[in-house]
C-alpha cells in the first residue's frame, strides 16, 4: 500500500474516534505506524497479546483502540481473541499485515499466509481487505462495527517483496 494512503488511514481513524494505536510493528504498514509516532499516539508492545490486553483496558474505559500486527502475531493472538475479546465482547479494530499473500514471499510466511482467511472465518472475526482504492469505505465500515460494540479486522496485503 502507498505511503500516502497509509498516512491518510492513520489520520482518518485518529480523527474519527480511535484514541489508541497499540501493537507490534510490521513493515507492511510502516508508514501507518510512522504517522502514529509523528502524532504521538502509538504504543509498541512486546507481544501482540499484550497489545490486546492493554487495548481491552482502554475499551473497558470507553476509549477506542486499534491493535496492529503482522499475521504471524495474529496467530499468536488467537487464544486472547477467543478468551478475552470475544468472551467479554470487547470492541477493537485489528489491523493485520498479510504476509504470505504473494506465493513467493519468504518461506516463514507461506503457511500462515495461506490459512489466514480461514482463520478469520473460523474465529468469526469479520474482516475486510483495505486497499489504496477502498480505504475510506473500509475504515468507515470498521468504525461502524466499533460503534455497534463489535470487533473487526482490516487486512493489508503485502504486495511487494
Amino acid at each position, binding site marked *: 500500500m502507498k505511503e500516502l494512503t497509509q498516512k491518510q488511514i492513520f489520520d482518518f481513524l485518529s480523527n474519527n474516534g480511535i484514541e*489508541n494505536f497499540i501493537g507490534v510493528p510490521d513493515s507492511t504498514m510502516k508508514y501507518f505506524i510512522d504517522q502514529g509516532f509523528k502524532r504521538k499516539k502509538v*504504543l509498541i*508492545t512486546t*507481544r501482540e497479546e*499484550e497489545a490486546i*490486553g492493554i487495548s481491552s*483496558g482502554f475499551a473497558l474505559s470507553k476509549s477506542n483502540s486499534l491493535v496492529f500486527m503482522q499475521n504471524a502475531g495474529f496467530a499468536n493472538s488467537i487464544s486472547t481473541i477467543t478468551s*478475552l475479546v470475544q468472551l467479554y465482547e470487547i470492541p477493537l479494530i485489528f489491523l493485520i499485515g498479510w504476509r504470505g499473500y504473494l506465493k513467493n514471499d519468504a518461506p516463514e510466511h507461506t503457511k500462515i499466509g495461506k490459512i489466514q482467511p480461514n482463520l478469520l472465518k473460523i474465529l468469526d472475526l469479520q474482516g475486510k481487505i483495505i486497499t489504496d482504492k477502498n480505504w475510506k469505505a473500509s475504515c468507515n465500515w470498521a468504525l461502524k462495527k466499533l460503534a455497534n460494540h463489535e470487533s473487526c479486522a482490516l487486512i493489508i496485503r503485502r504486495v511487494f517483496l
Partner: protein
Amino acid sequence: MIRKEAIRLISKEIVDDVIVSANGYISRDLFEVGDKPTNFYMIGSMGLASSIGLGLALQNPKKTIYVFDGDGNILMNLGSLTTISKLKPKNFIHIIFDNSSHESTGGQPTSTNKISIDAIAKAVNFKVFRCNSKKNLDETFKKIKKMSGPIVILVKISKSEKISKRVSLPPKKIKSRFMKSLQS
C-alpha cells in the same frame, strides 16, 4: 499465609478503586472473599491481567488500579513489566502472589523458587516490596497507599488446601457492571 488470607487482607483495604484479577484461583479467591463491581475477573487470557490493568491505569488517572497476579501468570507476560515501566503509571500497583507453582493446574512448579520476580521488577525500575507474613503485608500495604507507582508487591504464599468456587457471574455481566463502576 495462604493466598486467600492475603487477598482478604488486601481487598478489604481497597474500597472504591479497581482490582484486575488473574485467571485461576486468584480470581476465584477474590470472588469469594470480596465480590464487588469494581473487580474485573479475567477468567481467560492467561498472563494478561497486568496489561489490562495498564490500559485501565492510563485511561483512569484518578483511580488506583490494583492488579492481582500470580507467579505463573506474570512469567507468561514478563514483557509487560517493561512496557509498564516505560510508561510509569503512578496509579498502578502490581501485587504478585507467588507460591512457586501453577496451583490451579495441579501444582506444577514455576521457576520462582530459583529466580526472583521482584529482582526482575526492580531491574526495570519498579518500586518493589516483598512480603512473607500477614503482618508484613498489612504494614506494607498501608505504606504503599501513600506512594506513587508503578509498584510491585511480591507476596510469598503457601499452597492452599481448599479451593474457592468458580466465578459464577457471566463474563458479559462482569464487564457491564465493571464498566458502570468506572463511570462513578
